[in-house]
């Protein structure tokens, strides 16, 4: 039991993780490249405005040459990989803009939205979990019921309900995301509440387990107060599983952003993606997907690191 724990050299582990990340990125690029070949119809036609545009043969040919669509598929694939590796995401069919700058200009808004929502969700979840595990059986029932309901709230409906309540009835907040802090309140709240429901459910059980564990009894026997036990001991145990789910939370926030940005007419990655899907603007879709994949992978790497810092036990494994 007392064997000194041997650790895999940090560099080797890091290299393995980065290798894995690069592999996933390559696979995502490959998958999307070949997946969009499945789209029925001629991409050149799509670029020129779809089958209804009745583009001339010359126009089609020039577009094919411009976008490299006349090359063999393997050449196109390698060229695409090369471009992606260089950070070039191609050109939008519909907007006739470079996708890279377009996506980057939308990224900031979404990150602000997601970041604020994540912070708020954590706050709500922690507050609810600590309150409801302290206040006896009824509080616990109410707390866990609230969490289940919150987690079941679809973003699009919650957004609508919040708009009706705060914008139309109370008239205190804008129904559309105007620039400035007031315009952020409802979108952030919409994203945060369901996530808080999930986080709360994740926190609750380890929190209860920790509060009943022998080390808490030991701490109490040392003269620690109920509050001290909660904040010095239990909260950390409760937070670790939720921290390790940050990758998932990020994904769920991005999904939610698609809806929330649409409802509140807020510029961002999600709305850009939805518009691109609707008009089949393939390069933009691929661009957003690639950016999200990169962000997701970064997030999982960060999560891993955070978990290792928060929970020294995982370092031994």
């Amino acid at each position, binding site marked *: 039991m007392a064997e000194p724990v041997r650790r895999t050299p940090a560099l080797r582990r890091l290299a393995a993780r980065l290798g894995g990340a690069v592999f996933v*990125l390559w696979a995502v690029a490959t998958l999307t490249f070949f997946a969009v070949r499945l789209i029925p119809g001629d991409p050149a036609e799509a670029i020129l405005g779809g089958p209804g545009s009745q583009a001339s043969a010359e126009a089609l040919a020039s577009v094919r040459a411009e976008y490299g669509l006349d090359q063999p598929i393997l050449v196109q694939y390698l060229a695409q990989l090369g471009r992606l590796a260089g950070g070039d995401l191609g050109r939008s069919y519909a907007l006739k803009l470079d996708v890279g700058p377009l996506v980057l200009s939308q990224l900031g808004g979404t990150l602000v939205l997601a970041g604020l929502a994540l912070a708020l969700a954590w706050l709500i979840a922690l507050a609810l979990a600590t309150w409801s595990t302290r206040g006896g059986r009824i509080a616990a029932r109410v707390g866990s019921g609230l969490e289940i309901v919150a987690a*079941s709230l679809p973003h699009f409906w919650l957004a609508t309900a919040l708009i009706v309540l705060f914008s139309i009835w109370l008239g205190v907040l804008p129904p559309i995301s105007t620039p400035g802090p007031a315009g952020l309140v409802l979108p952030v709240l919409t994203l945060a509440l369901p996530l808080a429901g999930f986080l709360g459910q994740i926190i609750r059980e380890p929190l209860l387990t920790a509060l009943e564990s022998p080390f808490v009894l030991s701490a109490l026997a040392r003269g620690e107060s109920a509050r001290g036990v909660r904040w010095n001991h239990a909260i950390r145990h409760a937070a670790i599983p939720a921290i390790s789910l940050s990758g998932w939370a990020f994904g769920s926030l991005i999904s939610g952003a698609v*809806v929330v940005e649409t409802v509140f007419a807020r510029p961002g990655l999600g709305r850009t993606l939805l518009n691109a899907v609707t008009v089949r603007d393939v390069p933009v879709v691929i661009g957003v997907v690639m950016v999200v994949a990169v962000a997701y992978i970064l997030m999982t790497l960060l999560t891993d690191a955070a978990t290792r810092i928060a929970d020294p036990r995982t370092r031994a494994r």
Partner: protein
Amino acid sequence: MSDLELQAELGLGARRQGATRRPRRIAVAEGLAGAVALFLVLSAVMPQLVAPGDPLAIDPLQAFQPPSLPHWFGTDESGRDLYTRVVHGTGNSLLIGVLATTIGLGLGVLLGTLAGMLGGFVDFTVNRVLEVLFAFPGLLLALLVILIYGPGVATATIAVGLSTAPGYARIIRAQLVQVRSSAFVEAATVQGLTPRRILARHILPNTLAPLLVLATLGVGQAIVWATALSYLGLGAQPPAAEWGAMLSAGRTYITSAWWMSFFPGLFIVLTAVTATTLGRAIERRMRHA
């Protein structure tokens, strides 16, 4: 981790707590969830019984009526009764949810079992594939499918099914691996059971037992996602009586007729909460039956 895995973890993971306690009686929440589920199923199978009107009957004189005794949920822009429409939409919405879950669960079981049983190279490959699919978090995979095949009810259903499959696959695989290396499987080996009998008698039943729970939890999730796609205009289209499509239609009139958005959404929330509550109740009972 996917939404589904999380749901499952929360549903199945409750076993650590009070594992030896039998549920005493049907809790209030479980009873309520059962009643709601019954109502929803009845609405889906025999909507005429629950709401005798015609969901598509237009009555322009009655347009935009707020909730009242004759129109419990109010009326929409064409004077159609919203209560009737919501009830008649249950069938569509539930069907989409069930179909999507079936697709996702079927694929997930297939991939998860292959990986968990065959191990080695297959396991490695399946795991890499899942890892890649997880880099399309949440709705992203569904949106990609819709990009390729175009919007519509069928596509949306398949898209939601496909995007839940990786989650199911990982749960099934993890469960399989855990059961396979469990002490009771070793004990069966020591007893002299053949690998085939161990598989049939111990490994498969214990791996697949959580499927019912997973499916229940998953249907709720699938309905939320599918209605989200309809809401975004990528699934069922108005004037179809489908919850997401109705919400989408109500969006235009949100300032004047809040009820057009409120009630269809309420049914979605009810369904999701019911599915979660029932899923957990089934899990608790299965452990102690």
